[in-house]
């Protein structure tokens, strides 16, 4: 207490206290804040509190057992396999959606007959619920028979079991998910493409750059921000992909979300195990966000 620097006295001439300014709320600030408070309280109770609770529950056990018992059991339940599958589906589906979205958005920047009809068709899947999309794909890609196999057999090729071998199941999930979600990617990328000045392309054409070089030297560099937004929005949804694999292929091969659902029960002590799986899912999203932030930080 005998320090030489004088304590800041309200209204006095102490050294500027950086916190004092923040704590002092004018009427201009607290009235709007009061309007926001209900929403913040709501988000706090229904989003942040459960997220903390789930981690806390994940370390609870019915009987005194080793620390992290629920996580050790998760390994036996195949959590590594589920993580691997989730990563494969995420990377695969994001790649398909970016390439397809890029192609459709590029087409929509051009003028041609039937453009209006095509742009309506291109966003049509947005109107279909995820379960409905999954169901339609399950008619096309079932284990035996179905419309894809009907076409294969028609061309004299052998039929394929689309949902039981792990690899086929993951591809089927990627295809169905990409059908449903490419329109959103298209909309974002198209918005980005309209911001690129046409003069850049004209200059490149004069210099003799072909379509491929124009794509890599003009379009993609200028779309960087929009691609990043797409990756964040779609990447997070991709980790959480749930209804679609459940309807399309059932609980095997397991994805992280499906694993949580299989373990889930709202009763104690079963909830501890489900909480551990749910915490892994949470950690996954946190790591993904961290990667995006770090990469975004170094790019600038």
């Amino acid at each position: 207490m005998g320090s030489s620097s004088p304590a800041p006295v309200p209204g006095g001439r102490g050294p500027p206290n950086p916190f004092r300014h923040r704590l002092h709320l004018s009427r201009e600030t607290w009235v709007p804040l009061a309007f926001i408070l209900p929403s913040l309280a709501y988000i706090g109770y229904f989003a942040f509190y459960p997220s903390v609770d789930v981690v806390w529950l994940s370390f609870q056990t019915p009987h005194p057992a080793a620390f992290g018992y629920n996580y050790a059991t998760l390994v036996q339940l195949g959590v590594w396999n589920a993580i691997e599958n989730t990563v494969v589906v995420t990377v695969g589906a994001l790649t398909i959606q970016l390439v397809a979205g890029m192609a459709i958005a590029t087409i929509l920047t051009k003028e041609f007959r039937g453009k209006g009809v095509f742009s309506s068709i291109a966003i049509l899947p947005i109107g279909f619920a995820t379960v409905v999309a999954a169901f339609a794909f399950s008619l096309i890609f079932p284990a035996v028979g179905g419309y894809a196999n009907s076409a294969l057999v028609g061309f004299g090729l052998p039929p394929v079991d689309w949902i039981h071998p792990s690899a086929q199941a993951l591809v089927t999930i990627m295809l169905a998910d990409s059908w449903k979600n490419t329109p959103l990617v298209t909309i974002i990328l198209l918005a980005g493409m309209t911001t690129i000045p046409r003069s850049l392309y004209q200059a490149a054409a004069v210099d003799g750059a072909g379509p491929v070089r124009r794509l890599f030297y003009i379009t993609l560099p200028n779309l960087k921000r929009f691609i990043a937004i797409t990756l964040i929005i779609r990447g997070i949804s991709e980790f959480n992909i749930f209804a679609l694999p459940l309807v399309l292929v059932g609980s095997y091969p397991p994805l992280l979300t499906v694993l949580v659902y299989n373990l889930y029960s709202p009763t104690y002590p079963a909830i501890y195990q489900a909480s551990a799986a749910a915490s892994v899912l949470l950690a996954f999203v946190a790591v993904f966000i961290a990667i995006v932030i770090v990469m975004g930080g170094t790019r600038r």
Partner: protein
Amino acid sequence: MKPLRPARITLYVAVALLAVIILYPIYILFLVAFSPAHFTLDALYPPQLPHAFTLQNLTTALQSYNLIDPLFQSLQVAFLVAFIALGLGIPAAYGLSRLPPGLAYGITTVLFVANILPALTIVVPIAAEFISLGLYDTAVGLALLQELVVLPLAVFILLGAFQSIPREIEYQARVDGAGLARTLFGTLVPLAKAGIIAAFLLSWMFSWDEFTFAVILVPIHPTLPVVIYDNITRGNLLATTAFAIVMTIPVILLTVVLQKYLKGEELAGGLKG
């Protein structure tokens, strides 16, 4: 008529190919719904083209399954979600539009962080909590959780609507003697109508489609997406096609009828500021 250049031909081929890929699953859904089963689900390798037309699949499904209760439950939840989004979102967006930009940006970020938390992570502990609160298996309980995904988006859209209203209009109303509540609801809300309708529609449509919260939280009184999933697992595929059609038509109609409110400028929200 000038001959088509190779680039044009490539373009038209790509357009046709993409259109076919996008339309194919929708075509199959309607083909199965409106064809006799022996041409579709009962055939090992069903023909790709329609052979006969029937409404029987739909009528049988609607007669033998209870569709009214799930439909009512879905509607109830969707309207609750949409109204709560406005009830919480309008004051929040108004408040945000009147805060210093830095603080408003911080609060919007906090709202969106809530948006990226996995639904399954949230619903596992909340379901246990809702059992003790009496909210388990209720429309209100489900609406409260679905709101989590909708609210940040609704606030964002509404924020854009309020920011585009000049401050002078608000000052004028206050000078004329209107209180804060009357200024907000009497003067500002009518001016932000387009944004409010856009927020309402998006919230409604999200709830209509939502599956993850619903499958865990309302097992006894399910919404339509959960009923569709239940019927698929039981192998009632013809009934499922009927439900899928019933579920899709309102969204398509809503999108077409209210297209003018779902334009990019309405949804760009706070980005314009």
